[in-house]
């Protein structure tokens, strides 16, 4: 859309509320079905969900968990998720499915670690930007390969990005299990990055300081969060306020019209993938620089890039949506661990919930309802999906149309 809502406030409010209906409905649907699933298999849904609430939001903690710590964990989880969500949402607009955010995330983490270890003696003002930039470059390359393949030979990006995910996962294992990045005398862990490469946390790393009942060093919330928010703003500006963003969206809507307009479709595809790879790689770099400070076997089972797909879809591809969806999935991730501990229900229930959310977003049950009950205020014509994902999101994001002329 060309411009933001003008001074007609009620209509803008209506649009915002309408925009929330689909995602909210999907989340509610998922939780209901999830509860049924738990109940059918002999579990206690209430216990399970209170575990999620506790771990995710620090509420209703039954076993003496520290609320502040839970909230801090959630924040740490959703910080990289924001940028990874952007990495998936941006290509959607161009009609591309970036399922490779995980591989790009890992590539960024590897690049960050490599630079942070190799140049560990450099001071922070030089090393920190270097590692973050390195992460962006690593992710960009990892996304650029499928981008180029798509633009030149038309190789389907779903398959190529997924292949690169697997390659990245094996690459990490290779590097830190008896490989070149392994900490000498360590096992499946890399050398730590230099002190200059570490993102400062919000709370001082001083364990004599006690906050909310725990020593300050326990809270890991770090300044990477600010970078994530900034990245979100860059994404929104890029998409809606720049010529490049206009062209990206045009390619996603209609490649033929884009060509007519003089837009180079292959070039736009490659640029889009490079930029989104950079976002995902930055997420990986920030995870290393802000939290772990080295590559560990934790990264073997990382799911940030996959969660990002759900984030991008649930957030309907908008910056605010991505932020809210990231918080939700970050909370679910943190909550899963507590749920497993307290209620004995596998944290993979969270994955099930995620899938259910995806189903209902994809099916857009609301759209079907509206088709049957046109009084909801929309025309029931289904848009011709030249770029299916883009249609999916622009459908929900477009302004409510007025009465159509005959």
């Amino acid at each position, binding site marked *: *859309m*060309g*411009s933001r809502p003008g001074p007609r406030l009620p209509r803008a409010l209506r649009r915002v509320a309408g925009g929330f209906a689909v995602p909210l409905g999907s989340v509610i649907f998922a939780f209901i079905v999830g509860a049924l699933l738990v109940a059918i298999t002999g579990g206690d849904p209430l216990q399970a969900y209170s575990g999620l609430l506790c771990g995710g939001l620090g509420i209703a903690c039954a076993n003496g968990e520290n609320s502040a710590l839970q909230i801090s964990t959630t924040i740490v989880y959703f910080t990289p998720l924001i940028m990874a969500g952007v990495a998936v949402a941006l290509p959607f607009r161009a009609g591309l499915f970036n399922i490779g955010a995980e591989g790009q995330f890992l590539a960024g983490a590897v690049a960050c670690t490599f630079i942070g270890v190799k140049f560990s003696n450099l001071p922070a003002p030089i090393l920190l930007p270097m590692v973050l930039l390195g992460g962006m470059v690593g992710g960009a390359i990892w996304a650029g390969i499928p981008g180029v393949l798509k633009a030149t030979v038309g190789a389907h990006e779903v398959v190529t990005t997924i292949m690169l995910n697997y390659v990245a996962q094996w690459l990490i294992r290779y590097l830190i299990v008896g490989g070149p990045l392994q900490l000498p005398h360590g096992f499946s862990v890399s050398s730590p990055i230099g002190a200059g490469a570490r993102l400062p946390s919000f709370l001082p790393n001083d364990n004599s300081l006690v906050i909310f009942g725990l020593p300050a060093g326990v809270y890991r919330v770090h300044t990477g969060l600010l970078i994530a928010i900034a990245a979100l703003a860059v994404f929104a500006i890029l998409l809606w*306020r*720049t*010529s*490049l963003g*206009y*062209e990206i*969206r*045009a390619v996603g*809507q*209609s490649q*033929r*019209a884009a*060509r*007519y*307009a*003089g*837009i180079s479709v292959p070039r736009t595809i490659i640029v889009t993938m490079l930029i989104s790879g950079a976002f995902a790689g930055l997420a990986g770099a920030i995870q290393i620089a802000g939290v772990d400070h080295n590559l560990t076997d934790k990264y073997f089972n990382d799911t940030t890039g996959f969660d990002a797909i759900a984030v991008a879809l649930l957030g309907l591809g908008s910056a605010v949506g991505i932020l809210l969806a990231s918080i939700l999935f970050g909370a679910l991730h943190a909550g899963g661990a507590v749920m497993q501990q307290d209620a004995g229900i596998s944290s993979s229930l969270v994955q099930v919930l995620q899938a259910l959310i995806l189903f209902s977003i994809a099916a857009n049950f609301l759209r079907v309802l509206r088709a049957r009950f*046109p009084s909801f205020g929309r*025309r*029931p*014509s289904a*848009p*011709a999906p030249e770029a299916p994902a883009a*249609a999916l999101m*622009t459908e929900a994001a*477009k*302004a409510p*149309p*007025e*009465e*159509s*002329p*005959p």
Partner: protein
Amino acid sequence: MSAEPTDNVGVNLAVDMRGITKAWPGVVANDHVDFSVRAGEIHALVGENGAGKSTLMNILYGLVRSDSGEIIVNGKPARINGPRDAIALGIGMVHQHFMLIPVFTVGENIMLGREPVAGPGFYDYTRARKDIEELTKKYGLRLDPDARTGDLPVGLQQRAEIVKVLYRGANLLVLDEPTGVLTPQETVELFGILRDLIKGGKTIIFISHKLKEVLEISDRITVMRRGKVVGHLTTKKTNEQEIATMMVGRAVLLRVDKKPAKPGAVAFRVENLTANSDRGVQALRGISFELRQGEILGIAGVEGNGQSELVEVLAGTRRATGGHVLLGDRDVTVANAREERDAGVGHIPEDRRGVGLILNYSIADNLILGRERASAFSWHGLLLRLDAIRNWAKRLVKEFDIRTPSIETPARALSGGNQQKIIVAREMGTRPRVLLAAQPTRGVDIGAIEFIHRRLVAERDEGTAVLLVSAELDEIRSLSDRIAVMYEGRIVSFEPADTDEARLGLLMTGGGTGAKTGAA
């Protein structure tokens, strides 16, 4: 409501539709329509785009369910819930956009859904071929069952559609805008086939907006406007003006008033241009012409003779394989679409929904399509100047009378005519040196057609060089100052604007190049 009751007492009705109503949210497509067709006649159903003719026939064929009304086929009430029911009743439909599968052979397309059986689930292609050959011989429709459908010329594809319908035992054939894609010669052949079919006992419903053809082939005419039937006419007793007036509801200007042209400097010089089509076949075989400022050069020709490719090469969306194009004194042979646009070449593409517009973009966004990096609309090609874009949009919407609630409305929500006006506004709004207009009024209501015609002439009067490509001979003859006829990738002749239709029709099909210009 009908204008006059029709007298069908004692006459055998092939189909009688009574009180048909169908409404979509916001639009009433059919409003208590009464429509009856006598057995053995060719009945024309006429109206503008959006009048409801296609909807009515889709209801007859079962593709759409009506809200109310009844259908009586051969004297018996019928329930038509889908194409299967219609086919069983002997109704066959030849659609405007062919329902053929390009990668299948003609035989496979014809037998689809009614394949002769041989063994457990296998189909008997030999028997199908035999049945098809019998049919084609009976009605004089030469057709090769083993040809790959997508490779056939459009006229033969249409024949395959007709045979498909006959293969299923149709007695009532509905043809939806059948001549839009045919050469004049193919149209003559089609009419011959239709007359043979009538002799063979069939009944035909002929949907069209081409009044000359309707007058030539039909026995009776039903006119629709905005979902209602507004008139029943007997073909022998009526004329073009009367039908057109009924279609639109007011007197219609069939010709544009224009002053004589004052051609100026040469804008485009095209020398020996060659280019290939999407399929790799040579589409342009050495085109040469000059286009001057202040004139409208009309390219006449049946679609598929290279006109589309010519426009695309000139607009920069297709690469030439040889020859030169000079814009003023600048060689633009290899210029791409962006460079052409920046150099002052406007392009109204022939496919407005698929190419000329981004339907989900707002009207404002569509009005800068192709110019999102221009200095007027962006800061150094990076950031968009949203205010400038808004003002530009408001100005154009007013100047070109685009009917829309706001400039933020998605283009999808507008009618065909208004969508076309967006494109016209965008391309004319920047005061181009050259304007390439390909099929600028296709599928557009008469009011918008008149508007666009007037604007094209106005552009020409302001000095723009206009290249007009159209499959509608009337449009070419009424707007052009000079006419170039294209056939099989070449310009076969340059003709003055007042050349008669017969001569143009002959040239368009490759004949008459021996005779000199002016004489018949």
